[in-house]
């Protein structure tokens, strides 16, 4: 199968390129950017009306269009920007850097150019780009703009638990999503256990989700690629924006370091939950202190998270550009208590808490080798670390006893890669490259220190750091063969861990065939391989989730996905797509039955098992990107199963997030220049859950039938009929956000008032068994019950945002 695809790729390349030889051709190339800020525009369209040929810009705004000598009628456009028209006689290779200005109303001149990037003209399927302006309008929990929750509103994407950031894309699990911030993987994307994402909307300029039909340049995960690009920094003038919300405030500054040569962007966000809670906690401690006059107690809570993004963009010359971007963010959650006796001789200090966070850095070098060949070289670093610590020290007169325990785990990556973008002619766009990532995993180490007059112990348990190396190369060609457009590619990857080396060839194919003027049939087939795994508990999302590598025992995860769909643009305003998909997964991981994710004594490999998964479904999506009313409607009908030899007696069972129906609406209506309203409504079939539905009394073991007292006697056994055999109640929620904007000459302010879960739906977070005890006339009756815990009732929010 893989050989066939390789041959297909080579043949298609060889036989299609000669058609462009024999004519005098010249190349128009350059960068497309925002005229106001100098920010590069991704996927902006450049279209020659005369030859009906066009291209779109890459991630760095670069485009290259090779045309026949003679008159050209060039149209350039980008959604939300005024288009440009350029007529000239093409007689030599020409560099044109295009600057587009933002607009409000659609202009006639753009229509032709826009067609280039219309959904029915793109070979890529299963991909959605969400403008950051849309994301910022979406109502969010406590008013905190959340990039990942915006993606959860797309068809084929499901959220995990109530308010959680986990993304379950086409039946995959969260570890199967490659989330890239400026090209660097971010391993933990959540604050406060998943209620907020680590991506500060003010620092972001673009978000793209790819659910299937993965081009060969992507690899390393089975289910999705989420590319989040940070702002580059305004090259022209100094600007800022920020906001004050209920739980956090933000400030972003950007501007030129040297006008049109270098720029910076720095963005920070911090919560002040601690500042709000501190007086309450201290008052509570003070009230307890009065009851115990022999000592005084001081409390120092640490409860906050922060994010810091920074980027420098340096245009060395026309052909070279450097980007240095960094992100750091962390959650700090802990308490410290100090109890001091009134005579000051006895002091007891206790500290405990959990800290977790990411650091990412990327240095990228854009090199325009010639007007057809663009190269990007990246060196990146990413680290995720979680630490749970507890300490206690007791001083009695001169004697000091101290205990310290710390549990740490995490992952650290250092990577280098080169990507080339070669546009030999309008019928081919060839991308190729390669790279290598070095991973260091720390799947859980426990350090214990005990110090006293008689003891001095310092030991570490479970520290099993593992290193691995993951090289890859790829080549893909976006080609046009008559009416048929195709993206044919091959991704090859390897993984060296210990003495084991895994390798994989992953063919990729995407096809687009126009059925009529505005309607195209699309198909894709992709294979993917994943070498790293996230050990996560299905019941709760915690920062203690562990990233671990494939090993000699734990095989890499593999998948293949096929999709077939149609795409259409209706009345130049509505993008409509319908896609059916089937995804088959091998060697997916899960905790074994009864396994406990806590504890460091057992090798993590003993706790997990590998099996198979499959998911299939149908996604419908209608999106309106422009006009007074924007938004989308998405519906997914899907099935999602897992099978492990060690779970559910080896029988196939529904995945926890098997959701038959999933319906989402996002609507943003600009009532006037000053006022807009945005609402989202989502409905989903309840999550699958395992419940102990039956119980019976029996001898503990079969041989105990004749003597039940050997080895334990009788006991009541709870029977879970089948894994995930029950459904939680359906999930639905309405969120609304109202915005009042006032623009002045150099300052714009927006008041944002919203409500999460507007009609106060009690959505299930988890179910548990409990006992109702009633006492009537001295007669106690115990009645078992199942109960549902719901996390968020209606939660109002208000925020003040500004721009200058």
């Amino acid at each position, binding site marked *: 199968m893989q050989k066939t695809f390789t041959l297909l790729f080579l043949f298609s390349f060889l036989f299609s390129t000669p058609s462009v030889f024999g004519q005098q051709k010249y190349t128009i190339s350059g960068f497309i950017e925002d005229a106001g800020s100098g920010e590069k525009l991704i996927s902006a369209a450049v279209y020659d009306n005369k030859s009906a040929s066009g291209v779109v810009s890459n991630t760095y705004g670069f485009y290259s269009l090779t045309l026949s000598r003679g008159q050209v009628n060039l149209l350039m456009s980008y959604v939300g920007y005024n288009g440009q028209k350029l007529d000239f006689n093409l007689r030599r290779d020409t560099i044109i850097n295009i600057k587009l200005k933002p607009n409000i109303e659609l202009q006639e001149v753009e229509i032709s150019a826009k067609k280039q990037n219309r959904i029915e003209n793109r070979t890529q399927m299963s991909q959605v780009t969400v403008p950051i302006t849309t994301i910022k309008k979406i109502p969010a929990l406590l008013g905190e703009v959340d990039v990942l929750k915006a993606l959860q509103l797309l068809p084929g994407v499901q959220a995990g638990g109530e308010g959680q950031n986990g993304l379950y894309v086409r039946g995959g699990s969260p570890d199967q999503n490659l989330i890239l911030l400026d090209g660097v993987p971010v391993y933990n994307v959540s604050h406060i256990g998943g209620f907020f994402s680590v991506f500060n909307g003010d620092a972001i300029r673009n978000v793209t989700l790819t659910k299937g039909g993965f081009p060969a340049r992507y690899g390393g995960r089975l289910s999705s690629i989420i590319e989040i690009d940070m702002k580059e920094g305004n090259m022209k003038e100094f600007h800022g924006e920020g906001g004050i919300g209920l739980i956090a405030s933000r400030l972003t500054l950007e501007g030129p370091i040297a006008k049109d040569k270098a720029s910076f962007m720095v963005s920070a966000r911090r919560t002040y939950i601690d500042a709000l809670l501190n007086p309450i906690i201290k008052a509570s401690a003070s009230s307890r202190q009065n009851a115990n006059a022999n000592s005084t107690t001081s409390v120092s809570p640490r409860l906050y998270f922060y994010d810091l993004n920074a980027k420098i963009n340096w245009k060395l010359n026309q052909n070279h550009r450097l980007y240095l971007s960094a992100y750091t963010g962390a959650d700090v959650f802990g308490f410290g208590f100090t109890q001091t006796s009134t005579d000051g001789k006895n002091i007891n200090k206790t500290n405990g808490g959990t800290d977790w966070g990411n650091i990412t850095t990327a240095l990228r070098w854009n090199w325009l080798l010639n007007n057809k060949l663009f190269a990007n070289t990246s060196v990146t670093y990413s680290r995720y670390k979680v630490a749970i610590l507890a300490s206690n020290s007791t001083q009695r007169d001169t004697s000091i006893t101290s205990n310290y325990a710390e549990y740490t785990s995490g992952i650290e990556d250092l990577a280098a890669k080169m990507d080339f973008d070669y546009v030999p002619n309008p019928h081919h766009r060839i991308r190729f490259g390669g790279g290598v990532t070095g991973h260091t995993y720390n799947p859980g180490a426990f350090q214990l220190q005990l110090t006293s007059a008689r003891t001095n112990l310092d030991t570490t348990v479970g520290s099993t750091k593992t290193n691995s190396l993951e090289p890859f190369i790829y080549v893909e060609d976006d080609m046009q063969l008559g009416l048929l457009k195709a993206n044919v590619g091959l991704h090859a990857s390897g993984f060296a861990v210990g003495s084991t080396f895994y390798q994989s060839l992953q063919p990729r194919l995407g096809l687009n065939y126009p059925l009529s003027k505005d309607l195209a049939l699309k198909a894709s087939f992709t294979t993917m391989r994943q070498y790293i795994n996230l050990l996560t508990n*299905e*019941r709760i999302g915690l920062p203690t989730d562990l990233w671990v590598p494939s090993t000699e025992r734990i095989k890499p995860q593999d998948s293949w996905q096929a999709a077939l769909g149609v795409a259409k643009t209706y009345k130049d305003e509505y993008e409509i797509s319908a896609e059916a998909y089937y995804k088959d997964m091998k060697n997916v991981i899960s*905790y*074994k*039955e*009864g*396994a*406990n*994710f*806590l504890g460091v004594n057992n090798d993590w490999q003993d706790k997990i098992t590998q099996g198979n998964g499959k998911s299939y479904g149908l996604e419908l999506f209608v999106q309106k990107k422009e006009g007074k009313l924007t938004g989308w409607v998405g519906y997914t009908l899907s099935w999602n199963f897992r099978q492990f030899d060690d779970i*559910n*007696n080896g029988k196939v069972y529904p995945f926890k997030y098997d959701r038959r129906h999933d319906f989402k609406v996002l609507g943003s209506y600009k*009532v006037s220049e000053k*006022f807009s309203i945005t609402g989202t409504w989502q409905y989903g079939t309840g999550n699958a859950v*395992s*419940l*102990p*539905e*039956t*119980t*019976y*009394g*029996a*001898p503990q073991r*079969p041989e105990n*039938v*004749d*003597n*039940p007292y*050997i080895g334990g006697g*009788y*006991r009541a*056994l*709870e*029977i*879970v009929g*089948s*894994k995930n055999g*029950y459904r939680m109640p359906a999930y639905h929620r*309405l969120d609304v956000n*109202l915005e009042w904007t006032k623009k002045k000459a150099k300052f714009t302010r927006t008041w944002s008032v919203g*409500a999460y879960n*507007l*009609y*106060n*739906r*009690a959505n*299930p977070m988890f179910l*548990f*068994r409990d006992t109702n005890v009633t006492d009537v006339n001295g007669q106690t009756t*115990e*009645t*078992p*019950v*199942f*109960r*549902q815990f*719901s996390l968020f*009732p*209606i939660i109002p929010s208000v925020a003040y945002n500004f721009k200058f």
Partner: protein
Amino acid sequence: MKKITKIISFFALLSLAACSSSSLEKYFTPIVDIQIPPQTPKLVLVGRIVAGSSNISLFVTKSRGALDTGILNYSRFDTVTNATVKVFKDNVLFATPQYVGNGQYVANLPKAIPYDLATYTVQVSAPNFTIIEATQKMVSPAKIDSVGFIAKVKVSKPLNDFFDLLGDPQDASQFTIYFRDTPNEANYYSAYGTYILPNQTTIRNLRCDSRDPATENNYLNAKNLDGKSITWSTHSRALIGRQRGGGGGHGGNGGNGTVQAGTQISLTLSSVSLDRYLFEQSYSIYQNALNNPFAEPVILHNNIKNGFGILTTAAEFTYTFKL
């Protein structure tokens, strides 16, 4: 402005209506009771058929829904006294155990159950219940060739005088069983034992715990040892206060679980069916996960068609020697 006012009013009213319909108490109490479909009681069968034994003892009870009133425990279970239990050997009626009390149905056989590889089916019916059924093939016995032992001697006792049959496995006496696996079969083994002190007649029980690498939860999985000679080590511990035939007290006359030289040990090697092995694995995980909110749910292995429980077969060989 009118439009804006109308929009805001609409959402404010919707929100107010929702909040007022759910009382303030509910707003601050995020826990509500939910219903699951009622469970129809099913028959439960637990038991084993042992080659060489002259009786069949089966336990029959019934299940109840998880939300049914009343809590089950070791002494309160739902016996079924009017069940009809039939045991078929190779599809021919072999025995009809009768209810003897305490949930047990027993059939005393005219002769011992043979060691041949027959197929046994147990069928249980009772008024108002769906008939349940389980089928097991008899397993091949494994003959112990010899037994060796390493005595862990209490510090204060002279060598080969008192053997530790108590305490942690690493401190207990270690027995090594030498036997040959039956070829061309997937076999699973467990061991248990008894001992009789010198000059006494009371039979006391020994539990065998093994930390052999091929052992999972005290069951030896011989899938990779097909037909080979097997050396299997177990640490044996006296089961204090659970002696057969009464007697009470601790396990020996040496004090603290030690027994003196001359004690008669009987080690039984039990070859068990795959279903038994799977049940024991799932049961061990089940026990560890019980009442642990962070543990993944466990599904107990069940081989009873239309019901619950476990029916297994076993073929046993006992080797007796003196310390």
